[in-house]
């Protein structure tokens, strides 16, 4: 009796799901014009906090567009995939590749926002090139991906598919080396990286420029981000006694490095790139460990700019959180894609990945950071790198990034 009842209920459930699926699949999509846009960032693992702010920045742009009735008659449907995995504990290039294949397999997806991490970008770019689909990264800065000399590897089809609303580590690392020399008067430095694609590239770019401008590089070691103990390498650094440390990498190793460096070499100048400019580093590291650390972003500092004031209010109202600068570059990236959708719709060309890619390539879009335009490799024309320093503000919430660091200005530009 009991068993019969449950089976009947189960059958009814299956039937109703089938009905819903049928109406959803045929009815809704046929009536309304829809374009899907991917968002791929690592929402699991050590990068989750900053990745969420990037995702939210892009989502806000799409929601605003839909609230106005869509773009040129198209409803925007964001498709969010998580590039992080529990096994990696942070971003995972293998997962990024899988997600990209999923996006490419859906013909309604016309472009993508992301990734946050260059390691993911390296895995994604060749797949996107094959599909002729553009992605705009609001945060990943490794120069290899857009380097024309490495085009056979990252864009085998030739056309640029990897666009950026931030500049690359070819400027982020070297400009910081200039900052070390000119503003901090550093004469010797020890370089560390976290063995990831982004970290190694950034640290190498910094090291090359440091040598060029006469900063003595006393050594370069690679940290394993899954290792707990960095006191060994820090003791080695202490014995060499450089003026400063430069760390290329993301928060997972950065948090541990900050904590242990605070104990081993508390007075040394310490700095890094945009991998440690964010909530994950601040919250995981905490004061006093992160006090005094310098960090950069590969773009202009926007969250305090008048142009972004409305964005800051809307973002806070919607997500009850304080956006990062990369929330704004993500918002800008989304805006560039929306402008491309509008341009393609107005031109009367078919709405697909190739036309959208071409529209992005030739776009000049007014965004929160000013006019965004790309060179033929997909890199943004603006090359500003902004420098920050963590400084405790006991009156503000401990995880409020905007209040717990000072903006020090743009780093001296490398020609």
């Amino acid at each position, binding site marked *: 009796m009991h068993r019969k009842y449950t089976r009947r209920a189960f059958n009814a459930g299956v039937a109703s799901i089938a009905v819903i699926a049928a109406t959803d699949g045929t009815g809704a999509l046929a009536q309304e014009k829809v374009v899907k846009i991917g968002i791929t960032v690592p929402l699991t693992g050590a990068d989750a906090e900053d990745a969420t702010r990037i995702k939210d920045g892009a989502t806000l742009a799409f929601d605003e567009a839909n609230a106005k009735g869509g773009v040129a008659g198209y409803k925007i449907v964001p498709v969010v995939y998580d590039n992080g995995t*529990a096994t990696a504990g942070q971003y995972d290039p293998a997962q990024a590749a899988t997600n990209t294949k999923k996006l490419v397999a859906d013909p309604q997806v016309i472009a993508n926002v992301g990734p946050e991490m260059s390691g993911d970008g390296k895995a994604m770019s060749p797949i996107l090139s094959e599909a002729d689909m553009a992605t705009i990264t609001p945060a990943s800065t490794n120069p290899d991906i857009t380097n024309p000399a490495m085009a056979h590897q990252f864009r085998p089809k030739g056309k640029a598919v990897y666009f950026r609303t931030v500049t690359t580590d070819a400027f982020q690392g070297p400009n910081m080396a200039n900052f070390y020399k000119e503003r901090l008067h550093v004469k010797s430095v020890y370089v560390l990286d976290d063995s990831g694609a982004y970290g190694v590239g950034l640290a190498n770019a910094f090291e090359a420029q440091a040598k060029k401008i006469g900063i003595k590089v006393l050594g370069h070691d690679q*940290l394993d981000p899954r290792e707990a103990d960095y006191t060994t390498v820090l003791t080695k650094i202490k*014995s060499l006694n450089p003026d400063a440390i430069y760390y290329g990498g993301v928060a997972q190793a950065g948090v541990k490095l900050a904590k*242990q460096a605070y104990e081993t070499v508390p007075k040394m100048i310490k700095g890094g790139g945009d991998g440690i400019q964010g909530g994950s580093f601040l919250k995981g590291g*905490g004061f006093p460990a992160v006090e005094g650390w310098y960090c950069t972003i590969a773009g202009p500092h926007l969250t305090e700019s008048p142009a972004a004031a409305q964005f800051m209010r809307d973002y806070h109202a919607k997500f009850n959180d304080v956006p990062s600068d990369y929330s704004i570059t993500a918002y800008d990236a989304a805006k560039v894609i929306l402008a491309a959708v509008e341009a393609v719709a107005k031109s009367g060309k078919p709405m697909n990945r190739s036309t959208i890619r071409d529209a992005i390539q030739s776009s000049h879009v007014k965004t929160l950071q000013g006019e965004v335009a790309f060179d033929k490799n997909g890199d943004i024309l603006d090359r500003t790198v902004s420098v920050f320093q963590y400084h405790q503000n006991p009156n503000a919430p401990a995880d409020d990034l905007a209040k717990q660091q000072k903006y020090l200005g743009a780093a001296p530009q490398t020609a």
Partner: protein
Amino acid sequence: MTQWDILLQQVINGVSLGAMYSLLALGFTMVYGIIELINFAHFNVFMVGSFIAMWALVAMGFAGQSHVLHGLPLIGVLAVAFLATMLGTGILGVVIERFALRPLRNVSGTAPMITTIGLSYILYNVILLGAGADSKNYSNPMPNTHWDFLGGVTLRLREVLLWVVSLVLMVALHYFVRHTKMGKAMQAMAQDQEAARMVGIDVDRVVMLTFFLGSALAGAAGLIFGLYYNYTSYLIGYKAGLRAFTAAVLGGIGNIPGAMIGGVVIGLIESLGGQYIAVRWTDVIIFSLLVLVLVLRPTGLLGRAAPSKS
């Protein structure tokens, strides 16, 4: 710093690491000694221990490293934290043994070992889902007291604490195994399970106790890890666990003093290898040495060739 100062500093670093590996290695070696099972859940019992300890400290009102205690209050708070953590992970170990491993006790082959790998993943994912994936800023009431001597060698209070706690726990364990009735029952079990049963030893109780003690030591190691590094995350079990397991094998699996020595040896290799070769070669050096020791002395440093107990 002169060459000798650097060496001394790296030895201090290495012994600290080693003490932690030793505590963790004891759990592997005890369980193997009694029921010949390699318990991979131990990796993440250690990780769960560091979280239990952090929550205990948060419950006592500590957040981050801002609230610092000295003297007796510090000892009191740490004692409570150690007790809560060791009890927590001890019970976790008993639960794992009772519900997941005891039903498989008489199953031959690798099924029990594979089960422990599964359990390890369950613990890992429970913490991932429950506590999130970001690195946690550990609650730590210890002051940043340290002593500098010679040409810049630093000895920190937390290193001293690490050594003292590890030593006390290891001596206590040694005393327990050698001189108490229950400990002697454990030794008897390790030598011959069948004969132990014949003379009236309650096998289930001894196994349960072994899991309790091993897991409690892993919990203590978890708390020490948090206090030492000021951070924890759901990921910490793998690296530390693998090193500790290597330490147990290196010292001679099943042998308690061997696990202690193995842990310190691994810790020293890690710090000295990092100083004089390169940090990224640490694992290569550790595992090469392991292979070398096992080729030359298959029973490990202190292990004795025991007849197979099938």
